């Protein structure tokens, strides 16, 4: 993905994933394939006991429930948390099986200790690397997220977080934040030699320190089956789609600008959502830590 095309650079997640985006996202069959393939891989890395027993899992940044549906299909019970009310509304409409919670990962998880058998997160946690609002400190938000995640998991449980880091440094920053609160584990990078298929999974463990699972495609190979091929194209497809919308959208080719964000925020306010007041920071170019 080229500069300026990442959703994380355009607007905060609760603004970016508005009603339009939520619907488009959820009806895109390619997207559905990609997200379920990623979820299946995350489940594999979660390494739950193969005893046919449903486990209670968290889906962090569950969105409209594409990842959650893959969990249901695998026979798991889940609770999803997301910051976008619009995404959760779509999940609700689609009658996903998991319970849904509106929340910000950066606020920490509102969960009691030892309540979950595992956690997955698909394409969400890289958002924590941005300072989306005045007063946001990404490091503090990551710390809060990881410490409450650690607490909420049972001993021996894992969390597998698939991320789209902007660069390797961002990935390492997330790993470091996780290790600092007591997790063991690390980064699994599937197809590391392929720009298209490369996928990052943060594999975290509570209270055990077994070695990090082996990545796929270390020999320089590319994914073979069709669905993985779809996952491989994620980046390009996303880039292309967005370019198109940009051109047709503002007509100026400079993305969802400040005006667009202000308008969206006003719409959300009218619907009764609690939206941060507009300020000079609204829709500014997003600051990143690395």
């Amino acid at each position: 993905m080229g500069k300026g095309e990442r959703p994380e650079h355009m607007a905060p997640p609760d603004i970016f994933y508005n009603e339009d985006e939520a619907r488009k996202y959820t009806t895109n069959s390619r997207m559905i394939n990609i997200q379920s393939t990623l979820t299946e891989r995350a489940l594999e890395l979660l390494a739950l006991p193969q005893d046919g027993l449903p486990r209670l899992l968290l889906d962090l940044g569950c969105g409209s429930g594409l990842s959650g549906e893959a969990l249901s299909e695998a026979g798991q019970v889940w609770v999803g948390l997301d910051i976008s009310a619009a995404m959760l509304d779509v999940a609700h409409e689609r009658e996903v099986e998991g319970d849904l919670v509106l929340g910000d990962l950066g606020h920490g998880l509102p969960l009691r200790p030892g309540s979950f058998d595992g956690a997955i997160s698909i394409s969400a946690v890289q958002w924590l690397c941005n300072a989306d609002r005045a007063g946001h400190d990404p490091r503090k938000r990551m710390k809060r997220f990881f410490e409450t995640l650690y607490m909420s998991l049972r001993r021996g449980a894992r969390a597998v977080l698939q991320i789209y880091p902007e660069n390797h440094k961002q990935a390492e920053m997330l790993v470091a934040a996780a290790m600092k609160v007591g997790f063991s584990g690390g980064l699994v990078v599937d197809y590391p030699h392929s720009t298209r298929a490369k996928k990052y999974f943060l594999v975290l463990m509570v209270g055990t320190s077994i070695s990090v699972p082996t990545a796929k495609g270390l020999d320089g190979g590319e994914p073979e089956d069709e669905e993985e091929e779809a996952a491989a194209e994620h980046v390009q497809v996303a880039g292309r789609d967005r370019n198109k919308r940009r051109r047709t959208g503002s007509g100026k080719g400079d993305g969802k600008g400040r005006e667009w964000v202000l308008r969206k925020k006003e719409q959300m306010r009218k619907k009764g959502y609690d939206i941060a007041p507009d300020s000079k920071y609204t829709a500014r170019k997003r600051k990143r830590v690395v």
Partner: protein
Amino acid sequence: MKLLTHNMLSCHIKNVRNGYPFLIEVVKVSEHEADFDPDFLKHIFPRINWPAFLQGAQSLGCREGLPEEAAESMLEDEGFLKRFHHALLEVFLEEGSLVCPETGRKFPVTKGIPNMLLNEDEC
């Protein structure tokens, strides 16, 4: 929101010590059938905070038939499992609030989704 989820939620406002369990204010409750899976019920039972579960069930109107105290041995009783299953997974808080027992802060629940977003001064 199911009582299963209610049982796991705890108030995450900064410096709150006794944020569990949330009190439930009910505006609307609904029921949807869920697959009866004794294995899952047995798996999750030891983790359920029973007093919190009873309190939640009381609020949602499905407390009847649930024992004051629960013991592992009850899991052999099909009747108990059915009632446990029903209250845990089939009764939903659709509209209402979760109230932090320490601060009284209300987290609104709409369309079954609790809004747990904090204000800046709460995190």
